């Protein structure tokens, strides 16, 4: 079977759901994203945001937006993640949704906090200084949440 892109995989999952006699199914982490933004918000989309276009007004023109949605669901180097986050830190409303399994670094960074969930939060706090941050994550995530389709580490920032 050919490797599917992240968005195709999400669409395919909806077909799994259709077999369960339920009209519409949403992962809780995706629903949080839909609830965070309003339909009037014009949102800059970065990363794998296609899935959210069905209900949100997502565009790729930075100048026209003051809200931002970042979905990291592909292998991403830590330094690239930092660059992305730095570029959006002045937006009014920001949602960052990360598949933490897909991050990587190329060097041993001894200054980073040992607990991974705390380390990601610490990185976010250092970039989004003095902002209100809501943090969601699943402790001891063992794949049951299908996180490789739908990221479960999320930050909602205002």
């Amino acid at each position: 079977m050919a490797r599917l892109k992240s968005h195709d995989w999400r669409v395919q999952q909806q077909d799994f759901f259709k077999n369960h006699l339920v009209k519409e199914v949403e992962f809780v982490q995706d629903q949080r994203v839909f609830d965070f933004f309003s339909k009037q918000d014009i949102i800059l989309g970065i990363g794998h945001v296609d899935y959210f276009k069905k209900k949100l007004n997502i565009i790729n023109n930075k100048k026209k937006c003051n809200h931002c949605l970042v979905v990291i669901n592909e292998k991403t180097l830590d330094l690239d993640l930092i660059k992305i986050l730095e570029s959006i830190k002045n937006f009014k409303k920001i949602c960052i949704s990360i598949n933490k399994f897909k991050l990587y670094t190329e060097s041993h960074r001894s200054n980073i906090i040992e607990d991974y969930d705390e380390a990601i939060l610490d990185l976010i706090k250092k970039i989004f200084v003095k902002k209100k941050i809501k943090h969601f994550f699943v402790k001891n995530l063992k794949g049951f949440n299908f996180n490789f389709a739908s990221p479960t580490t999320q930050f909602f920032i205002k």
Partner: protein
Amino acid sequence: MKIIESYNDLNELSIDAKKIIYSRIHDKNFTNKLEKILPFGKSVWIDSAGIPDKNRYVFENRKWKEIFESKEIKYYKDFFSPTLMQSIKKYINPDFIVLNNSEEFRYLTPHELTTKIEIISNYYQTKIFLSINTVFLDFNKLKYPNSLIVENIVINFLKYTIHKIDNFKYIYEIN
């Protein structure tokens, strides 16, 4: 609208859905590399998308039973059951064991992975080929690079080789 936390919140998945999920777990990129490095001999493939033949015995988790057509495949309920391991050792006595992207070795911390490899290695006392994708390993990925973790997992084994496919995909050859 139904809001779910995981697939566990749904009832049984369809056979088609199970086929899709199984094929995503068992990445073909590893199989190609494995076929190049495997020695000749009698092998047992457990939860590894193996294709049975006269020298290859294939075991799969019972939960996937309905997606396979081959009648040569055997099914187990518990990967680490002593009964399963004893039967494999006694009745097949393989030259090597293949664990190719097995679910049993996913979403583990490096320490948990080492422990599981030790159990398998100590029990079967034969060569083991274990493929892993570091994406599915649970460690602090902002702090530690893959290369360091991959080496540390097997560093205390007496005999091992690490075959690198790319920066994320590795095959351990143990014993």
